[in-house]
């Protein structure tokens, strides 16, 4: 269960994706280092004081973090140009933006900001295809030690990571039982995270994902309950909604081998094959 954090200091989230991102970061991978530049376009609706300080920090998920760099103040912001980072690769670099008042209290923040994709000068080494239509992109990686894992980063689509070198991607595509086991687990986990983790509160990808789940349910799924957490526990109503959404996703009609069926129906048919045993010869 995630920790519930109140917001008495009134910090607000800065948008770094969508149509009008408030910060845009572009980067280029050189042989020995990475060079990035960052442009700010803070939304005046936040009503930050002019003397609030702005800093940008490059870091690596589960790795190291560089010293934050000043981007001036809200009243006098300055873009960053040609910043050199030697020990983080373009594939793993992320950024944090912090806006602080004169008492060092955080008034605005953005985390897990990735490099803006459209105008990157890189050779496209990022492997996720954010342009594709699927709500759950799949990526093989040797950086996990379980058969599969869900990676969730605010403002990005959830990604299904499959252990590389095991032909799991093929198994996932071809074997209905593998697909259903993995889907059941990951849909539950994604829904749980989206509904409970406040980091995703304003995430447009969350809205897209939930809408897709509702579309798949063909009108049989209502909106998630408003109060999902009570007394530091997820409510029964919350659990029920997640189970219903997962179940409806698996029972969605699909066309498979020329017939109209669902993942759950095909899964059941596959499983039942194992129940057909030879007669006892004795």
């Amino acid at each position: 269960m995630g920790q519930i954090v109140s917001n008495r200091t009134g910090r607000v989230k800065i948008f770094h994706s969508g149509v009008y991102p408030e910060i845009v970061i572009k980067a280029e991978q050189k042989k020995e280092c990475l060079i990035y530049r960052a442009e700010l376009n803070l939304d005046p609706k936040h009503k930050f004081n002019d003397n609030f300080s702005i800093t940008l920090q490059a870091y690596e998920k589960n790795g190291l973090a560089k010293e934050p760099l000043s981007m001036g103040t809200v009243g006098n912001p300055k873009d960053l140009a040609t910043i050199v980072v030697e020990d983080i690769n373009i594939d793993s670099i992320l950024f944090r933006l912090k806006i602080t008042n004169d008492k060092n209290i955080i008034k605005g923040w953005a985390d897990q900001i990735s490099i803006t994709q459209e105008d990157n000068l890189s050779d496209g080494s990022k492997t996720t295809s954010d342009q594709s239509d699927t709500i759950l992109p799949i990526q093989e990686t040797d950086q996990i030690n379980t058969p599969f894992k869900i990676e969730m980063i605010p403002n990005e689509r959830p990604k299904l990571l499959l252990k590389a070198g095991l032909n799991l991607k093929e198994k996932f595509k071809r074997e209905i039982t593998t697909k259903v086991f993995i889907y059941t687990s990951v849909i539950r986990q994604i829904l749980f995270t989206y509904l409970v983790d406040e980091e995703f509160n304003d995430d447009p990808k969350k809205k897209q994902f939930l809408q897709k789940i509702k579309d798949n349910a063909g009108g049989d799924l209502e909106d998630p309950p408003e109060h999902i957490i009570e007394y530091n526990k997820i409510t029964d109503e919350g659990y029920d909604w997640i189970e219903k959404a997962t179940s409806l996703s698996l029972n969605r009609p699909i066309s498979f081998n020329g017939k109209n069926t669902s993942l759950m129906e095909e899964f059941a048919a596959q499983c039942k094959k194992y129940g057909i045993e030879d007669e006892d010869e004795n």
Partner: protein
Amino acid sequence: MKIKRFTNEGRKEWIKLYREIFISIDKQTPNRRSAKEGIEKGYNKNLQKKIELLKKDNTLSTPVDGAQDLDLKDYKNSYELGSALDTSLKNISYKDLFDDLNLWDCLSLNLFDKIFVPGKIKGFMPYRYVVDVDRNNSMRHLVRGPWWAVNRYGENAKIFTYTEVYQQNDFFEQFVKVNSLRELKVIAEVCMRLYFDKENNRSIPGTSKGTRGGFARLRDKISHYNKIKFLWNMNTNEIIDMLPSEFDKYKI
């Protein structure tokens, strides 16, 4: 000692051999939490011989360009080992070293008699000797972990490396998993100031656990402060001063 890196084939052989060692010990160990006897029995003469043969096989490793010879001695603790490695590897970039699994595992083989000591070690999980890239295990490697701690935190790494070279360090294991602690070098200094007993060169007993004002509480408080205050602008004293009264007994 010359610092070498495995070839890809060499690392495969190392993984295979350590797996064999692990299985042999595991067969002799009814309870993995109490493995001392099983380790002594399982790491038999045949496996010891295989370790020596792999060490001598020059076709499976190559010298590391830019590395200085490692000052090989009886390291008093992991801090000494980490410091010696950091000195030997100082001319190679962090980026090149961090993910060089062939390097860390070759060092693991060549330092095996120091980090795998039957009769003294209590654990034998593979991640101690073969780098496991999973986030929860990657720093549990008994060679790579101390190097990383010293490389990142310098003298303040002592709180994470005061233990014997064949032991894992409870503080380090807990510290390294939490982004807000690991990234801020100043937090390592906070830990040193609060929980390190300089006279005895070790942590104050019990502080790595969930006692009042102990490390688990520090972790919670720093995660909380990190959401409210910009800790990167603060020094050690300022952070220590912010901590509530339950930490007072350690602030002295």
